[in-house]
């Protein structure tokens, strides 16, 4: 295409107009974002307009937006367990073989051979998540959870031994484990509560934390296959305040919104058909 003089002028005109539009947008943005909005919003953050402009431009640090008075509270943690990379590494590296020997010597008298408890007084353990066993044993040891039989047992074990026992009970194959997916019983209302929750009471589904690999808190134990007596006792203990080693009230909160009948039926539901 041959260049025509009028075409060149046309392009110049367009170029000038485009540059003006870009410059206008830039100017508007600078005035609006760095001056008008900071000045108008300064009272919200309790600062004067000049400080607000300096913060918007980046000459002054934006944080803290308002200095906070020092916290007078003292920490009163309900559990000392921290899910740090170090803890996760101990759990991942734990050898289940010494764990098996320890379990045989220490745990099996109550929790049964291969973690299948013969009595309703003691929960099944095989198939349980390693993180859950580690958390509870640590809490028994630190006193965050108390049980006349478990507390002295846990106090005698080292951190590594706890992890080995956790690894042993977690290492069972699905077929051999006492805990694991079960065919639910035909209780439609409770099945809905366990799988869908109850938005009206802001109750999340049990399964959102307790199903394997759902991405909830690491310490959430496997429930399906557990003895209904044990599950019911724990729900009651959480609701009644006898047990409180659940970080940030997760279970105390949920259980306080359940009726006694629902606790019974949930325990029944999770025990399932064995």
């Amino acid at each position, binding site marked *: 295409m041959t260049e025509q003089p009028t075409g060149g002028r046309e392009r110049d005109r367009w170029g000038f107009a485009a540059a003006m539009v870009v410059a206008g947008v830039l100017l508007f943005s600078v005035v*609006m974002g760095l001056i008008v*909005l900071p000045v*108008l*919003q300064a009272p*919200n*953050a*309790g600062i004067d307009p000049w400080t607000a402009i300096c*913060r918007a431009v980046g000459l002054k640090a*934006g*944080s*803290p*937006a*308002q200095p*906070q*008075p020092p*916290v*007078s*509270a*003292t*920490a*009163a*943690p*309900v*559990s*000392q367990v*921290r*899910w*740090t990379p170090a803890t996760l590494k101990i759990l991942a590296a734990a050898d289940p073989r010494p764990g098996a020997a320890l379990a045989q010597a220490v745990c099996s008298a109550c929790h049964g051979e291969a973690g299948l408890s013969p009595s309703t007084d003691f929960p099944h353990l095989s198939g349980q998540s390693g993180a859950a066993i580690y958390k509870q044993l640590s809490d028994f040891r630190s006193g965050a959870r108390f049980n006349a039989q478990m507390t002295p047992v846990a106090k005698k074990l080292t951190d590594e031994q706890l992890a080995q026992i956790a690894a042993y009970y977690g290492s069972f194959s699905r077929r051999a484990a006492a805990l694991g997916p079960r065919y639910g019983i035909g209780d439609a209302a409770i099945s809905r509560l366990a799988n869908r*929750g*109850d*938005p009206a009471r*802001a*109750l*999340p*589904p049990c*399964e*959102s*934390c307790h*199903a394997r690999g*759902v*991405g*909830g*808190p690491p310490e959430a134990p496997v429930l399906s296959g557990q003895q209904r007596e044990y599950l019911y006792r724990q729900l009651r203990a959480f609701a009644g305040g006898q047990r409180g080693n659940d*970080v*940030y*009230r*997760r279970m105390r*909160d949920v259980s306080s919104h359940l009726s006694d009948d629902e606790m019974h039926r949930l325990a029944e539901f999770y025990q399932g058909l064995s």
Partner: protein
Amino acid sequence: MSEADERAIVRSEIRWAVVAIAAVSVIMLAVIFAAIAMHINPPSNVERINPQDLHLSAEFTEANLGTKVEANGQITARIVATQFAFVPRCVVLPADRPVTLRFSSPDVIHGLLVSGTNVNTMVVPGYVSQVHTVLRKTGDLLMPCHEYCGLGHSEMSGTIRVVPSAQFRPGPDGRVACAAK
């Protein structure tokens, strides 16, 4: 290509440019309106906290959560967003007085808004989200989690109970909690 064709193309391009500029302008005006008239602004607080130790920290230990009137009269509500609840579930705050809300998460990213107010922030593990506001409406305001946080996300919501300033009576330790309804 004929000159008529070229002009037709230019006209069409200009029409679409006008539509695009108008759409962007409307959105920007809405943002500016919200910023000025509704006092909605992005939270600017950058404050770090270790999420693994949140339950061991002094500030976000369980007993220190909820509303507290500090020694200097400042009203602060500390709330932990965790899977799948706000702790505490219900927080009392007075109307027409400046209040500070401080949030943190020990697990995953959460978010929240308090319906009908300018409180709207994400709660990112590792940081403290801090919001200042003055609540104008009294009553129970819904505070849902608005950042997908897991399978129980849809059941995760809390309540901000705004009471008239005269009915806001902190205890001797400066704390106020929701009475069971």
